[in-house]
């Protein structure tokens, strides 16, 4: 059976993943739509910036977050002075790190879904009197829904497994910022904690597997809906 400490680690991890997914999703939908359907100056640069966390080592992402949003960071300093809010080394930091690393995955998936939609559906919608906003919510979002769900699930799964950015930006504070990945890392270094590590690894695998199956199921529905 799981100990209360293990249960609280799992709950904290799921909570951070859920909160970050809910914040990531609208941003990813908007960015995915913009990148798929609009041409604007600096499109490639924005796409590149979004995708940096995909290729850069997570620890680098975490370090950059610390420089930008840390208490003495470029932006973090002003936030701290104005609102007395500290963004680093707390639950908020876990969420922010998750958002940054999962955003490119969600955006890529959602963008490819929007790209599959024939632009003539937008024309048909306009000819029936719908505005651009109305067309976005009544045509684009429902038609890209399988891709959006799949992107959300991938973002959630990525958040669950996040390690490098979290440990450098949020730290490894038990009960506060320690997620499953960080807990496994800590317990691996303590002799006799193998059963705890094994249990958390199994739970991680199960959650990830369910998420991937879910994501694949909706990915296959992408083409089916836009036909």
């Amino acid at each position: 059976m799981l100990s209360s400490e293990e249960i609280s680690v799992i709950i904290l991890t799921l909570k951070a993943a859920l909160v970050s997914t809910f914040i990531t999703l609208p941003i990813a939908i908007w960015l995915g739509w913009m990148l798929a359907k609009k041409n604007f100056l600096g499109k490639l640069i924005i796409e590149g910036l979004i995708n940096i966390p995909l290729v850069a080592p997570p620890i680098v992402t975490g370090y950059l977050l610390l420089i930008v949003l840390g208490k003495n960071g470029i932006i973090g300093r002003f936030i701290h002075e104005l609102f007395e809010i500290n963004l680093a080394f707390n639950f908020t930091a876990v969420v922010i790190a998750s958002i940054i690393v999962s955003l490119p995955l969600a955006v890529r998936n959602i963008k490819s879904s929007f790209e599959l939609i024939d632009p003539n559906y937008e024309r048909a919608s306009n000819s029936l009197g719908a505005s651009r906003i109305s067309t976005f919510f009544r045509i684009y979002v429902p038609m890209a829904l399988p891709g959006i769900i799949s992107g959300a699930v991938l973002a959630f799964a990525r958040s669950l497994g996040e390690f490098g950015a979290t440990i450098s930006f949020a730290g490894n504070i038990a009960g506060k910022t320690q997620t499953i990945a960080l807990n496994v890392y800590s317990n691996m270094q303590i002799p006799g904690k193998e059963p705890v590590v094994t249990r958390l690894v199994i739970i991680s695998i199960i959650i990830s597997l369910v998420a991937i199956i879910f994501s694949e199921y909706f990915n296959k529905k992408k083409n089916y809906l836009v036909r």
Partner: protein
Amino acid sequence: MILQFEKVRHQLGDNHFYYDFQMNSSITGIFGPSGAGKTTLFNLLSGLDTPQKGKIRLNFESLVDIEQNLIKQVKKRNIGYIFQENHLFPHLTVKRNLLFSKPYIKHKEKYVSFNELVHLLDIESILYKKPRQLSGGERQRVAIGRALLSQPRLLLLDEPFSNVDCSKRKQIISYLLRINNHFKVPMIIISHHLEDILKLTHKIVVIENGCSVVSGNILNIIKNDEKPELIRSKKFQNTFKVNFDSYNKIENSYTVTFNQDIVLRISNHSRLLNKFISKGTKIQLSLRPVDISLNLENNVGTSIQNQLKGTINQIIKNKEGVFCIIDCGFELLVEISQGIISKLYLHEGQEIYCQIKANDIDVVHVFDQSEIQESKIKQAKIPEPINN
């Protein structure tokens, strides 16, 4: 409906377009080869594209006037557009597709009701299906219905016959005439099949190489020799409206009349006709020029059931063949062989008999009398006779 394109210039990449014409018809056909610029014309008219120069007016209201910097928004133009590929929204049922425009027509005058339309288009049984579950003909009907429920003042149909087989084409032509007659909504129809357009209307605009080259009544275009290739006999359709008279049980044929004094017999091969049709019901017929033969006398000893007395209005000789325009009360284009003119000493003004087999007359549409009586349009737009 009066549509004016005044020196409209548009450029798409390396393709240049120029439209300059005026049409005044309940149904207008846009004819031209693939890639000629027919769809571009629709995009400019509907507002999906904006021209670089010129004016577009609908019923004397400016939609585009580049000089005055006037470009009316798509939704303010109130034009229904049925795309070539239908573009029914795949995530919505037929019913939700049909009602898509409902939130945007709150302040519009409504002349098309949902129930009436569903009944007219025979789509009651498919309301809860998704577009992917429909046949080509059904999808086309739903697309027509969806556009009509946006209460447009003009309906644009881009190649409505392209994704359907021959029998379904006939069905769609019949539905379009039904809709046009019932709701009095003007239509412009694009097709590269001249025979389909001519079954609906004789008012056409010909588009070639991105330009409107000629417009007006096709018989006038042919008479004036403005576009000789339009006369191709197998593509041409003589179209005329008649009144149903009676069913002849012994001959298994129907009798119809034109202007009460011209009587025609039609064989019982059209599924649109039945003996229960009431006398006086309007019927639209079509007939190919090649299916009419000429005779100097009224030949009684023949199996051909229809012999219409007429006068040769014009004899046209061109590279497509030899044709006569005969006035039988309505004008008929007749194709004859080169040698017949000298053999029968045919000349303009001569009286002649047109022989037509009952089997060769095609029934395009039977106008339901209730359709004619129950027209609910508040905009007074009366369709013009096809052969004017």
